[in-house]
């Protein structure tokens, strides 16, 4: 049936006219207890920062559930009212992006296994004719990461491109009382070349 689908085209250099919105980078409001900040930069194959990129994230809530009809378990009983699951941030002139969210829980897989906590990440920019998709995993989940079937399928050292790195503080808010161990994570995205991020055919 793929013959009927509409092809992808590049987002181009001017998507910032429409796609970003003020709350976009905030999957939860910044003052939410337990909020984490994901920072990173986007790089091209020459090591230059990409100042006209767009990052989107999609993830489960802290209980590992989705408020979506195709999650057969239904939404979390606990409820995460302000949690949207979706984040969107354009890159700045220095290639940087920043997403504020809650850490997702682990997920059951249809084969009976368990997926380690992760975010799905879509990357768009001028020069990308289709989005590329990667995953962000967490550095404090070593046992779960070791058992994750997707991570396990990728050899070192490339596997490390999918695991965020704990940062001491958020450069945007170095004095924030919320910034502490494991609350700021760095996830750089390298589209090509040395340290090229693992991208997925989804």
């Amino acid at each position: 049936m793929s013959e009927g689908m509409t092809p992808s085209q590049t987002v181009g250099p001017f998507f910032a006219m429409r796609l970003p919105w003020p709350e976009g980078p905030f999957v939860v409001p910044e003052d939410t207890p337990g909020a984490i900040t994901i920072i990173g930069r986007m790089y091209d194959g020459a090591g230059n920062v990409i100042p006209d990129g767009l990052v989107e994230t999609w993830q489960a809530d802290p209980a590992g559930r989705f408020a979506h009809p195709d999650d057969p378990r239904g939404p979390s009983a606990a409820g995460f009212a302000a949690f949207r699951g979706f984040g969107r941030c354009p890159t700045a002139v220095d290639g940087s992006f920043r997403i504020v969210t809650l850490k997702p829980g682990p997920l059951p897989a249809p084969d009976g296994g368990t997926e380690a906590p992760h975010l799905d990440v879509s990357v768009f920019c001028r020069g990308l004719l289709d989005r590329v998709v990667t995953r962000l995993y967490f550095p404090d989940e070593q046992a779960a990461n070791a058992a994750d079937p997707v991570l396990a399928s990728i050899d070192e050292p490339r596997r490390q491109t999918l695991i965020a790195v704990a940062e001491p503080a958020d450069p945007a808010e170095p004095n924030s009382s919320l910034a502490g161990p494991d609350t700021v994570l760095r996830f750089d995205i390298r589209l090509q070349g040395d340290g090229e991020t693992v991208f997925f055919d989804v």
Partner: protein
Amino acid sequence: MTPDVSPSGLVLPSYERPDGVHPALDFTGYRSTALRHPKQPLVLLPQRLTEVTGPLLGNDLILPTDTDLTMQHAGEPQGQRIILSGRVLDSGGRPVPDTLVEIWQTNAAGRYRHAREHHPAPLDPNFTGVGRAMTDAGGNYRFITIQPGAYPWGNHHNAWRPAHIHFSLFGRAFTQRLVTQMYFPGDPLQPIDPIFNSVTDPKARERMVAQFDIDLTQPEWALGYRWDIVLRGPRATVFESEVDDE
């Protein structure tokens, strides 16, 4: 007949893969792809919970003027008024209801309202060139806007983009996310545009071109164009008992 139940009790949809539809990421005719395409092969990602769900963004993002780009300022914009309507469908032919459609485009002179835009064509104080709509229960969307213009870009000598409108779509699942461009019929720039021709299958390319529609056209007021968008759809469920029957 009971559905196949997996060991975890999870039964998830499985989305068609868009084999051969989308452009290759390293399309040499489009210069900016050179340093921005991954060189390592993509890793096959099984479609699990994160991939078969997706953001269901709602009407709270839509302002009343978001579907009529000619009503966003004090006066009317310059250019040919058009009505642009169509359906968002999945590859099984099912409508995709209640999904956000985002668009952005140049004004009638081929100029984007953006700080990094250098084309010396006039800005229009009455036109921003951005819109949002939600599809209805039948997957229908509708915008009123202005025919965008062609514009030069630095890709090669005398390079001009054919008139187009950028579209961003979510569908209902992460797998369905699509950003694309809609083109206009009969545009002489299409055969020489690297981005349009990065889609190498001529039939797939034609699916990016809207059709003029006299029935959508409103007398004494605006031309009508119709454009349907087809996202990846879930495969039909296969029950294990059916497989056993074969």
